[in-house]
C-alpha cells in the first residue's frame, strides 16, 4: 500500500539542489521484500521518490538507484513519465544523494525495476491526476471531460489545451489525491514502458562529460593511494618512507590502521600505509616506493591450489544435509541402470570494473561530505556514522556515475578510507585504487567445488540426484568463522533446483574463507548454474538423448512452485524460453566441421533464461561463434536496455569462462592487472542474439544478472558437442584452450 505525501519544498531543494518552484511530490511506500543480499536497510522502508515540474514545462525526476550501466536512470524515469503523460523531451534526471527518504537504494540483486516500477508509475499517475484537476478547475469544467496527453491537459468537449508548465501554480495548491483514487494505465496504452528509450545520459557518455567518482574535483583537494597488505588482514609492522617522500608531489605519508567492522554489518577498511600527494600519479609513485614490513597474519598460509584440493576432497565425502531433500538417493542409485559422477570447479574471481574503486571525502569537524561511485549509498552513510561518530544527518553521500559496479561498489571500504584520510589531513581527498589494488584486495567471488551424482534407468530417465557443494560464504565477510554456505546462498539455484526429480539430496561442505568474500554479478547462481547445467548435459549424453529434449523432460509437468516471494516459479515459462531459444538458434541443424552447440537454462532473480552457444574448436583452441539468449523477465520496461544488459552478460560470462581466475599463494593474490587477469575483448566477441519473450502482463523481474550464469555451462556443453571432451574446471585459459 502506498501513500503519497507532500514534501516540504525546502527539504526537497536541499536534497536535489533545485532552485525554482514547482509541484513537489514524495511517495512513501511500505517495505519491499528482503532480498538475499545482506544489507543494512531496515525492515520497513520509506521510499520518497520525486517529481519536479517547472513552469517552463521541464520535468526533473530523481533517480534513487545508482547508474552503473544498467540504464536505471532512464528506466525509472520512463515509468514516471509514461503515467504522467509527459513529453519525453522535457524530462531530465537527477541523481539522489544517499538518504533513507528515497527508500532502499541498494542497487543490487537485479531488483530496481522489480521493486520500483509500481511506486514510480503511481507517482507519475498522481501528478497527472493533479494536473487534470488543476486544468478542470481553471476551465471550470468536469475532470471527467479532461484527459492528459503529451505534456498537455485537453478538454475533450472543446478541444481546449493547456500546457503542463502553465498548471504549476494551480496544481501546487491542490491536496494530494487519495492513493485509492489513482488510476494506472493499461498495458496496451503504455507509451514508454515496454518500448525502447535510449539512455538519457548518451550525450555525457559520448563527450567524456559524465562525472564518475574518479572525476570529482573539489578545490584544494589532495589525492591518496594506499599500500595494503598483500595478505588479507595483514597489518603494518614497520615502513621506510625516505624514497617515497622524494617523489615530486608527495606531501604526507602515514599509517592507516585497519577499521574492523562490527559483527554482522559494514565493511570497515583494510588499512595500510597512505601516501598523500597533489596528484594521483605522485600518490601511486610514492606508494610504489614505500618499503613496508608486514605482519602477514594467519592468512599467510593460504594457497588456493591446495584449497581446491581440500574442497574437492570434501565434496567427495558426505557433507551437511541441506533441508529440502526428498526420496532416497542411495536406493535410487542402487536400482539405476547407470550412475554418473562429475566434479566441477570455479576459481575465485574479481569484478574488475573499468573504473577502479575510489572515493572523494571531506571531513570537517562535525560533518562529512562524500562523492563516490557507490551501489549502496545508505550503507556507506551508516558505516561512516558508526566509524567516525558523526550524526548521520551530518553526512552527505553524493552518488556519482559508476564506471561499472558488478557488486564491487556495494562494499564501501573505499569510502571509509577516503574519510579516514580526510579526517587525518584535514583536507578534501580522493582515494584512488590502482588496478593492482583492485585485483589484489577485492571482495572476491568465491571459488567453488561441487560433486554431482545421478542415476538413470533403462529408458534414460533420471532416478536420483545428489549434489555436494562447497564455497566460502559471503557471510564470512560479516561474521567470523562462517565456514559453510548460508541459506540465502544455497537458495540461489541449489535448493530451488527446477527439475522434477524423484530422489533428490543436497549437501553442503565446509569451506573457510581466507580472502574477503563478496558478491559479484549473479553471485552464487554462477556456481549452481555451472554445476547443474553441465551435469544435466552429462546425463543427457549418458541417456543418449538430445540435451534440449532431456531438459524439457526433466522439467516435468507444468507446475507452479510458490516460494516465499510474490514471484512463484512457473516451470512452463522456463520451458518456453528454452523452446524459443532452440528455434532462434536453429538447434539440431547441421553444423560446420569442428563446431558444436551447447545449451543451458536457469532461473535467477525471478527471471527465466535459456542460452545456446555455438563454438568452434580448432587445434584445441575454442572460439565462441554465436550466443542466443531468450529471457522472460515479465514486463520488459525498456527493451533495448534489456538487450544491452543481456549482450553484456554474455560477454561477462565469457570472460569468466575463458579467462577468469584469481589465485593466491602464501596468502597473496598472484594476478596483477589485465595482462594476467584478462577479459573478453572485441576480437573474442561472438554474434549475440537476444530475444525478449513477451510477458507484459506479468510483473517485472531481474535483468542485470540473469544473463550471466548460463554462459559458462552453455560454452562447456558446446565444447563437448564439438569435441566429445568435458570441461569441468574453469577457466579455459588454464586448460590451454584459448
Amino acid at each position: 500500500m502506498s501513500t503519497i505525501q507532500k514534501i516540504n519544498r525546502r527539504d526537497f531543494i536541499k536534497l536535489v539542489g533545485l532552485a525554482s518552484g514547482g509541484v513537489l511530490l514524495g511517495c512513501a511506500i511500505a517495505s519491499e521484500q528482503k532480498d538475499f543480499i545482506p544489507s543494512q536497510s531496515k525492515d520497513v522502508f520509506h521510499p520518497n521518490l520525486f517529481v519536479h515540474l517547472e513552469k517552463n514545462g521541464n520535468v526533473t525526476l530523481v533517480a534513487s538507484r545508482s547508474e552503473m550501466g544498467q540504464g536505471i536512470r532512464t528506466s525509472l524515469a520512463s515509468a514516471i513519465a509514461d503515467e504522467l503523460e509527459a513529453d519525453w523531451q522535457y524530462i531530465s534526471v537527477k541523481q539522489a544523494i544517499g538518504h533513507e527518504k528515497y527508500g532502499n537504494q541498494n542497487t543490487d540483486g537485479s531488483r530496481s525495476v522489480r521493486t520500483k516500477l509500481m511506486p514510480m508509475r503511481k507517482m507519475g499517475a498522481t501528478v497527472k491526476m493533479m494536473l487534470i484537476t488543476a486544468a478542470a478547475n481553471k476551465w471550470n469544467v468536469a475532470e471527467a471531460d479532461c484527459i492528459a496527453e503529451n505534456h498537455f491537459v485537453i478538454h475533450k468537449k472543446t478541444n481546449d489545451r493547456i500546457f503542463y508548465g502553465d498548471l504549476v501554480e494551480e496544481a501546487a495548491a491542490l491536496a494530494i489525491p487519495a492513493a485509492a483514487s489513482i488510476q494506472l494505465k493499461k498495458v496496451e496504452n503504455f507509451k514508454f514502458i515496454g518500448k525502447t528509450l535510449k539512455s538519457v545520459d548518451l550525450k555525457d557518455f559520448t563527450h567524456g562529460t559524465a562525472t564518475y567518482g574518479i572525476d570529482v574535483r573539489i578545490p584544494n583537494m589532495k589525492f591518496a593511494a594506499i599500500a595494503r597488505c598483500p595478505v588479507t588482514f595483514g597489518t603494518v609492522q614497520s615502513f621506510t618512507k625516505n624514497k617515497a617522500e622524494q617523489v615530486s608531489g608527495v606531501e604526507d605519508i602515514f599509517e592507516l590502521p585497519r577499521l574492523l567492522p562490527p559483527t554482522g554489518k559494514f565493511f570497515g577498511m583494510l588499512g595500510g600505509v597512505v601516501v598523500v600527494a597533489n596528484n594521483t600519479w605522485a600518490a601511486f609513485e610514492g606508494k610504489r616506493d614505500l618499503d613496508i614490513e608486514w605482519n602477514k597474519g594467519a592468512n599467510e598460509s593460504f594457497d588456493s591450489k591446495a584449497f581446491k584440493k581440500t574442497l574437492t576432497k570434501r565434496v567427495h565425502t558426505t557433507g551437511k544435509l541441506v533441508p529440502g531433500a526428498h526420496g532416497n538417493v542411495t536406493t535410487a542409485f542402487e536400482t539405476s541402470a547407470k550412475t554418473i559422477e562429475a566434479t566441477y570447479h570455479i576459481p575465485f574471481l574479481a569484478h574488475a570494473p573499468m573504473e577502479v574503486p575510489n572515493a572523494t571525502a571531506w571531513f570537517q569537524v562535525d560533518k562529512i561530505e562524500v562523492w563516490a561511485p557507490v551501489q549502496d549509498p545508505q550503507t556507506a552513510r551508516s558505516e561512516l556514522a558508526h566509524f567516525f561518530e558523526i550524526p548521520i544527518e551530518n553526512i552527505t553521500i553524493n552518488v556519482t556515475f559508476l564506471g561499472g559496479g558488478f557488486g564491487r561498489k556495494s562494499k564501501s571500504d573505499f569510502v571509509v578510507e577516503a574519510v579516514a584520510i580526510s579526517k587525518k589531513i584535514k583536507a578534501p581527498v580522493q582515494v584512488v585504487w590502482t588496478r593492482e589494488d583492485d585485483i589484489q584486495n577485492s571482495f572476491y567471488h568465491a571459488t567453488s567445488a561441487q560433486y554431482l551424482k545421478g542415476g538413470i534407468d533403462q529408458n534414460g530417465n533420471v532416478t536420483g540426484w545428489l549434489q555436494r557443494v562447497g564455497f566460502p560464504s559471503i557471510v564470512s565477510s560479516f561474521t567470523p568463522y562462517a565456514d559453510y554456505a548460508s541459506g540465502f546462498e544455497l537458495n540461489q539455484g541449489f535448493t530451488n533446483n527446477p527439475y522434477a526429480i524423484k530422489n533428490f539430496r543436497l549437501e553442503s561442505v565446509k569451506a573457510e574463507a581466507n580472502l574477503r568474500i563478496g558478491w559479484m554479478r549473479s553471485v552464487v547462481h554462477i556456481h549452481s548454474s555451472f554445476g547443474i547445467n553441465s551435469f544435466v548435459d552429462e546425463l543427457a549424453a549418458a541417456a543418449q538423448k538430445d540435451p534440449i529434449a532431456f531438459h524439457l523432460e526433466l522439467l516435468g509437468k507444468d507446475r507452479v512452485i510458490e516460494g516465499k516471494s510474490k514471484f512463484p516459479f512457473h516451470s512452463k515459462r522456463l520451458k518456453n524460453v528454452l523452446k524459443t531459444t532452440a528455434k532462434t538458434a536453429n538447434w539440431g541443424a547441421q553444423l560446420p566441421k569442428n563446431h558444436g552447440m551447447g545449451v543451458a537454462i536457469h532461473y535467477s532473480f525471478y527471471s527465466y533464461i535459456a542460452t545456446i552457444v555455438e563454438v568452434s574448436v580448432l587445434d584445441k583452441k575454442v572460439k565462441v561463434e554465436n550466443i542466443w539468449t531468450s529471457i522472460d523477465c515479465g514486463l520488459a520496461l525498456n527493451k533495448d536496455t534489456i538487450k544491452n544488459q543481456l549482450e553484456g552478460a554474455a560477454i561477462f560470462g565469457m570472460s569468466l569462462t575463458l579467462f577468469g581466475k584469481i589465485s593466491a599463494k602464501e596468502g597473496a593474490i598472484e594476478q596483477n592487472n589485465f595482462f594476467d587477469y584478462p577479459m573478453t575483448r572485441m576480437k573474442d566477441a561472438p554474434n549475440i542474439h537476444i530475444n525478449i519473450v513477451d510477458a507484459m502482463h506479468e510483473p517485472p523481474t531481474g535483468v542485470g544478472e540473469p544473463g550471466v550464469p548460463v554462459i559458462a555451462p552453455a560454452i562447456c556443453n558446446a565444447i563437448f558437442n564439438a569435441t566429445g571432451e568435458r570441461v569441468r574446471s574453469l577457466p579455459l585459459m588454464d586448460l590451454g584452450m584459448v
Partner: protein
Amino acid sequence: MRKLYRELFLEISIYLYLVVSKLLKVKTNLSINGKSYPIQAPKKMPLLWAIRDIVGLTGTKFGCGVGQCGACSVLINGNLTKSCSILVADVIEKEIFTIEGTSENLEILRQTWSDGNVPQCGYCQSGQLIAATSLLDAIEKPTDKDIDDAMSANLCRCGTYTRIKKAIHKAVALKNETV
C-alpha cells in the same frame, strides 16, 4: 659570522633545490584540442595524469595504468596513443586530441554511438570513441577484421563490443551517404 654561514647555507640549499626540481620538472604548454594549457609537471609524469589532474580534463580515463585497457586513449599528432604510457616530456609541442575535442569522424561516431545506444556504464567509451576515430582516420571502409584489430586494445567490462562494431560500420555508411 656563524649566522651568515647559516644563511648562506640556506640560500645555497634553496638554490640547489630549485635547480634540481627544474631539471626534474617541466614548465611548458600542452596543446590539447587546439587549445594551449600552461602546465608545470614532473617530466616523468604520464600524460594521462597531466591531462586529468593538472589540466583538469577528466574525459580521458584511468583504467589500468599499464597500456592494457585503452580507457586513456588519446591522439598525439593524429596517432592513437595510450596516455598512461607516454610521458609529458615526450608530447611537448605535439598536438593532443582527447574526447573533449571534436573532429568530423568523432562527430559521426558520436551520432552512431547514440543511435545504437552503445554505452552501458560509459566509462570506457571515451577511449573506444578515440580508438574508433583513429580507425576511421586511417581506413575509409574498415572490415570486421580491421575493426577487431583496431578495437581489441580497448576493454569494455560491460561488454558493448557488438554495438561498437555496428556503430563503426554505421558511421562508415553515414559518411558515404553524406559525401
